């Protein structure tokens, strides 16, 4: 199942609709990394509200996405992790260290807006 990626202002929003196979995840990663510079996005939001399970592969892929996108000059926020999912991830030792997470889409957008105004942003984006 392909993940639709929408452009919203300076941000890209990828909303996961249903459980993803490893292939789907890889595809999502590749598509996001390519489109982020294609549309000159400043931020990327990956919405995982629909996911009941986030396994080690998914965690690693999400982490990779965030790091790659940062290298390409944008910020990533993972939003909508369910409470149960969050706790089982931590239990399994799967961490999203150094990656921004927010409660939901709205929060994620607010986070990126704040980031965009901050001084950090000036330093990082030298496109």
């Amino acid at each position, binding site marked *: 199942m392909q993940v639709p990626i929408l452009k919203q202002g300076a941000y890209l929003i990828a909303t996961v609709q249903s459980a993803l196979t490893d292939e789907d995840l890889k595809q999502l990663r590749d598509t996001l990394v390519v489109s982020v510079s294609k549309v000159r996005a400043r931020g990327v939001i990956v919405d995982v509200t629909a996911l009941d399970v986030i396994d080690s592969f998914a965690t690693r892929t999400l982490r990779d996405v965030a790091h790659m996108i940062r290298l390409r000059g944008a910020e990533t926020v*993972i*939003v909508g*992790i369910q*409470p*149960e*999912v*969050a*706790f089982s*991830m*931590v*239990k399994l030792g799967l*961490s*999203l260290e150094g990656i921004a*997470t*927010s*409660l*939901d889409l709205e*929060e*994620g957008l607010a*986070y990126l807006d704040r980031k965009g105004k901050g001084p950090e942003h000036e330093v990082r984006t030298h496109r």
Partner: protein
Amino acid sequence: MANTQELATAMETRLETIASRLRELVAHLRQQRAQLREEWARLITEAKLLTAMTKEEIFAEATSVYDNYVEALETGTYEALQAYARNLSERIIPRGVETHEVVGIVLLLRDVLARSLFAKYREDFNKLNRILDAYEPAANRIAGTVAVGFVQERERIIREQQEAIRELSTPVLQVRERLLILPIIGVIDPQRTRQLTEQLLRGIRTNRAKVVVLDITGVPYIDSPVANHLVQTVEAARLLGANVIVTGLSPEIAQTLVNIGVDLGKMNTVGDLQGGIEEAERHLGYKVVLTQEQSAAHSA
């Protein structure tokens, strides 16, 4: 071979005699019902047992206990008595009846009945002995059954109350828009830890919290599994996009956390609850200022 058979026959006769003696006993107790019951109720009042109940209530309960008692003696089955004991306990525990009172009244009844047997068979000492042989084990068993029933009922009530306390033990309170506090009081056992995690994560979701202050001033100590769990909860909260500030760590808890090698980069701690709330407010962009009159009063 012959020996075993003899033994078996002897046992059968013995059982039969015990049964017939119990029958005789029961007949006697039925006959003397009114008098013995009154005697018993009188003794209960005299011994100042069941003070939480009125005389009439004691008499009514005494009657049903008496009948159940005799029935248990007659049938040799204790289920009915057990059920009655449980039912009785349910009614009298909330009124503050203590274990020793319940045991006391059952033992009193045993004594009353034994006395009446002494009186009845005082002419024939051998017969009295035989009747007592049949009576005593049954009576002791009844006393045990009633006492155990009472204690079990008590324990059930205690368990229920523990449950209720546990439910009330981890309140999630919103102090400002997007700011929650969770004050924890008392020892955190593994079950409570699980509940804490659940409440915290759910609270973040429902209140759309950005910052949670987890105050553990009232927690004397925690062991390493609980400490680990706590750290994991903090991380899980971060995955939901909320920051957890832990406040009021006692020196012992600080020691435990250092021993398990907690990553302090992941855990935000502030000395006390006030500090924690101030930190949270800063984080959320709140600024608390004194109103003018108040600050004038302060400087004056």
